[in-house]
């Protein structure tokens, strides 16, 4: 347990000091990479809620990632041009305020998740995988054909969101904001995994039929998880569009859905730190392999196959098992 605590605080200290270290070593670009890793970890945390704790294999979570990104970009664009986003049935102006745009992104994703979830959860197993994929494709093509907002070419964010006293254009400040959000999400995961909601969700994952017989209204619980999950991934998308200052249908591509899935599984499904570990490793692998060869996918693909065949509990799962054994 002490080792685990040491690891936690060591990791936290490293994360907090990272911008200073990077500055000292002249590796300024590292802050950007770390921000990117954290954002994808946040998306992983969102997916982990339903995949790791709820056993729902969504192959379409990039839909929320992209939707969240588009909401921020579109609102900002309307703000820039001074045109309202919509005028009927009531007028909604554009905004570049993080405090408005980011919750709006989460809300839009929650609503989308409510609709997608309500339909998808009627099915199960393979059909669920496919229908979530199909919904993501649907949104993908929706944004591809949405010429008003760039269509295939995507949409630039002319300026990162305004966040009160913070200047998000400063890499370190943006990094810290993302870090705080990820920490909150991690803490929330740790809490609700052990709260009544989380236990019910895990019970459903392990044996839904039994849960119904015990008296749980399981669909409601699953749908709630799906909506929360969509909102978190939407927030990650909102952050990512701020990071890249650009959004395109590629945000919603099925490859992106696969990537988030890989991050969660590689890191360790149903563990608090799994998605974070997964995101770190995913990027390290990409970094190391792509320095070796530009065709790094040719190595990464088979590695993924091997990981699925031989290391199912994921990296954090392995670490956690080691720590537990040491006591």
């Amino acid at each position: 347990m002490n080792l685990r605590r040491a690891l936690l605080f060591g990791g936290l200290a490293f994360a907090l000091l990272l911008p200073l270290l990077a500055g000292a070593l002249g590796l300024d670009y590292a802050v950007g990479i770390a921000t990117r890793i954290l954002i994808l970890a946040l998306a992983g945390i969102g997916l982990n809620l339903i995949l790791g704790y709820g056993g729902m294999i969504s192959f379409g979570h990039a839909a929320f990632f992209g939707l969240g990104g588009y909401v921020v970009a579109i609102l900002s664009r309307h703000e820039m041009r001074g045109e309202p986003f919509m005028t009927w049935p009531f007028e909604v102006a554009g905004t570049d305020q993080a405090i408005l745009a980011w919750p709006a992104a989460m809300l839009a994703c929650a609503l989308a998740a409510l609709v997608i979830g309500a339909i998808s959860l009627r099915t199960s197993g393979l059909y669920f995988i496919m229908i979530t994929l199909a919904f993501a494709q649907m949104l993908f093509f929706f944004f591809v054909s949405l010429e008003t907002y760039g269509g295939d070419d995507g949409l630039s964010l002319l300026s990162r969101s305004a966040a009160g006293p913070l200047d998000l254009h400063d890499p370190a400040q943006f990094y810290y904001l993302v870090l705080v959000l990820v920490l909150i999400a991690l803490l929330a995961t740790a809490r609700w995994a052990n709260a009544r909601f989380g236990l019910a969700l895990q019970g459903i994952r392990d044996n839904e039929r039994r849960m119904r017989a015990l008296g749980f209204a399981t669909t409601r619980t699953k749908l709630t998880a799906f909506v929360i999950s969509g909102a978190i991934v939407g927030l990650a998308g909102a952050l990512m569009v701020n990071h890249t200052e650009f959004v395109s249908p590629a945000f919603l591509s099925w490859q992106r859905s696969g990537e988030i899935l890989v991050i969660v599984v590689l890191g360790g499904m149903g563990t608090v730190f799994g998605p974070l570990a997964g995101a770190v490793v995913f990027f390290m692998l990409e970094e190391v392999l792509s320095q070796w060869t530009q065709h790094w996918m040719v190595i990464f693909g088979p590695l993924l196959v091997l990981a699925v065949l031989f290391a199912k509990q994921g990296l954090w799962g392995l670490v956690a098992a080691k720590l537990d054994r040491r006591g």
Partner: protein
Amino acid sequence: MAESLLKVTGLTKAYGALVACDGVDLDIAPGEVHAVIGPNGAGKTTLIGQLAGELRPDSGRVSFAGRDITHLPIHVRSARGLARSFQITSVFPRFSALDNVALAVQAHAGGNFRFWADARKDSTLRDPAFACLERVGLAARAKVPARVLAHGEQRQLELAMALATDPRLVLLDEPTAGMGREDSARMVTLLTGLKGKIAMLLVEHDMDAVFALADRISVMVGGRVIATGRPDEVRANTEVRRAYLGEDEIA
């Protein structure tokens, strides 16, 4: 006889040409242990499925505690006090024994949308759960993950979970399935201890268990109940013997 707790009338369910349940009538008094026996394929599992709410009957009525529950979903039946245990052990393997039972308590305590408070430190869930474990003699194993429990212990845990929903009637689908002699005997003792407090509908092939426990027995053959009565009556019933031993040969 006292007002019946569960009353089944004309329950019918067919799969294509095969009528698995053919106009079944059944009633169970409060506190009664009622066994349903019969050869494989007689429709016992289909019957339990319909009572629990997993299968929708083609026709017929099920009423429980005086109210029609024929079309209620499973979780609502459970809330009314109709619990079920499974033929194939289905505990939650990753959870500890106590977690398993606490989850069953939570099913009716509600609060499934509490996201923050640690449910594992919630005495309103843990205390009743622990009491149920004590009742089935598993208190010493409370912290052991369910997957590590021996098969017999898992069946005991299964029973504790059914009890934790505070039922008035438990549907027991082969509680001694897959158990050796000693475990079977222990389970029978356990169930005997509950007699009179909770009504039970028992589907079981182990006749020792059936005759040790049942107040009344219904015999199902080919989707129909061909006899209902006290154990000695059923044992003496020639039609039952014939059906059970297959002595219907046209020699």
